[in-house]
């Protein structure tokens, strides 16, 4: 009992942190002191001071504003990737679990097995590297490079989410409630969409929260090697890539602040996910997912 409470104190901290990050992301235009993309070579590489709270980078851009704006990209990628993963994973997992014992289930399970046995990070690097970092143009719409990151990361999540959903649905499908509903004449779709899905919410919430954390790190890492968010758009990963060149010359504010931003945000999601796990899913469905 005590442990759940203690764990949830951490969960509470996580929620607060995420809350702050979300507010920053939403209010970035208001909170930022400068235009994050405004170049000012004369004022480059300034240490943190009154005007530039976190200093300026090699192009004279205000680091503080860039860090604030960076939350937008990171959260967007993190959340959208998870949404994608949920859409794909829940669909596949529900179908597989509902039609348990069938060939369809076998095929789906094996496919998820196969998908989780390839190193998706490397493939993401290769795919983006091969296709190029130009935005995707679909008619009048233009999707920036991060879209590719979102899609690939979402695919990374699908097997794990499908597995969790599959396990829950398999159990639920055999329950008396479902049998009763079927006798009442409810269609398969109605049953799947109703009671069964409701039982997945708890473990999936935990999983989703933890996956947002992973997604933020993946985006930062890909941006770091130039395959994620493209300059001049501010992203913590690209800021760190720029900072690399200044490691030896003592401009410590260039790597420290973006990195702290990533760490704090990810810690927030991990704390919340851990706290939620203690509350919603003490031992069962979710396993630690590695990336």
């Amino acid at each position, binding site marked *: 009992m005590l*442990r759940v409470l203690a764990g949830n104190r*951490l969960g509470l901290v996580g929620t607060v942190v995420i809350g702050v990050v979300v507010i920053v992301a939403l209010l970035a235009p208001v909170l930022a002191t400068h235009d994050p993309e405004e170049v000012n070579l004369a004022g480059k590489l300034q240490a943190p001071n009154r005007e530039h709270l976190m200093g300026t980078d090699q192009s004279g851009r205000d680091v503080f504003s860039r860090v604030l704006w960076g939350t937008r990209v990171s959260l967007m990628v993190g959340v959208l990737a998870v949404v994608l993963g949920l859409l794909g994973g829940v669909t596949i997992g529900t179908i597989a679990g509902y039609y348990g014992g069938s060939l369809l289930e076998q095929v789906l399970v*094996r496919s998820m*097995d*196969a998908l*989780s*046995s*390839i*190193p998706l*990070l*490397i*493939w993401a*690097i*290769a*795919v983006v*590297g*091969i*296709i*190029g970092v130009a935005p995707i143009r679909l008619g009048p719409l233009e999707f920036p490079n991060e879209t590719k990151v979102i899609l690939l990361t979402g695919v990374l999540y699908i097997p794990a989410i499908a597995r969790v959903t599959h396990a829950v649905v398999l159990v639920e499908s055999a329950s008396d409630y479902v049998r009763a509903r079927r006798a009442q004449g409810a269609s398969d779709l109605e049953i799947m969409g109703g009671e069964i899905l409701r039982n997945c919410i708890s473990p999936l919430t935990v999983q989703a929260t933890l996956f947002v*954390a992973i997604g933020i*790190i993946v985006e*930062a*890492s890909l941006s*770091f*090697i130039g395959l994620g968010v493209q300059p001049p758009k501010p992203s913590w990963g690209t800021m*760190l890539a720029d*900072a*690399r060149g200044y*490691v*030896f010359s*003592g401009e*410590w504010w260039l*790597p*420290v602040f*973006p*990195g702290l931003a*990533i*760490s704090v945000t*990810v*810690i927030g999601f*991990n*704390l919340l996910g*851990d706290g939620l796990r203690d509350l919603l899913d003490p*031992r069962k469905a979710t396993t*630690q997912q*590695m*990336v």
Partner: protein
Amino acid sequence: MVRFVARRVLFSVVVLVAASAVIFVLTRLVPGSPALILLGPEAKAEQVQDLERRLGLDRPLAVQYARWISDVVLHGDFGRSYISGLPITSEILRTLPITVEIVLLAFVFCLVVAVPLGIVSALYEDGLIDHVARIVAIAGVSVPGFWLGLMLIVCGAVHLGWFPPGGYTPLSMGLGAHLQSLVLPAFSLGIYYTAIISRMTRSSLVEVLRQDYIRTARALGLSRTRIVAYALKNALIPVVSVAAMSVGYMFGWAIIIEQVFNIAGLSRSLLSALFQRDYYMVQAVVLVITIVFVGANLAAEILYRALNPRVRGTA
């Protein structure tokens, strides 16, 4: 057991074949013929066609794939980089060991730190070490490895001067210097998995210690050491499996870490190949890493089976 292994190996092979086909097609998806890239934009049409014919690029895709995959499987020959003209296999053989070494060091570090930490956390549940370990683990899983590497370079190399700021010092320059150049990268790489494995060990052991069969052992007067030894045998089964998988994952992240530390391992081959549009090289490196990853997962599954008497006998 044998049937199980055979099934999983077969499955892994199928996955690898599918993956190789996908990566092959992917590299061909890009507009612009490699021949054109090689010869430059001023090349004349016949020159381009001629080169394409020589490189075998005019044959149907399936035939090209068949040739490539049979070369790889039968001769271990990944072909030649058409950018540098050098055989890809030897390039990979040059850079792969470096990455392997970093991963191995990270892995050893991981096991040596994570498992004892997890055990102590479990044995003294809710104690000081347990709480500290939990917080450190959350940090370890959240702090991006490549940023940690950067920070370590700033502190460890620039300020303290204990480690070289990057680059790979080959063994020929002395064991000490060689290892020194690998400490920071291996550490940055391994922290994430150390955190995961330590938490996993802890929760697994806590769970086992709650079991009825441990109660039986206590009730029959076995010594505390013996009981912990019993519990460890049960608890470490899933940990071994996760550890095997983490080797695969580490290979992927090594690519990023190597970039931070400017180490000419597999990452150099992959990323410069991508940059130079050297697709044969990209294919090869992606396939190699995929093989390692599939292998690690396969090992994890087999180990889990093999260590578990209850499921060992079943097919």
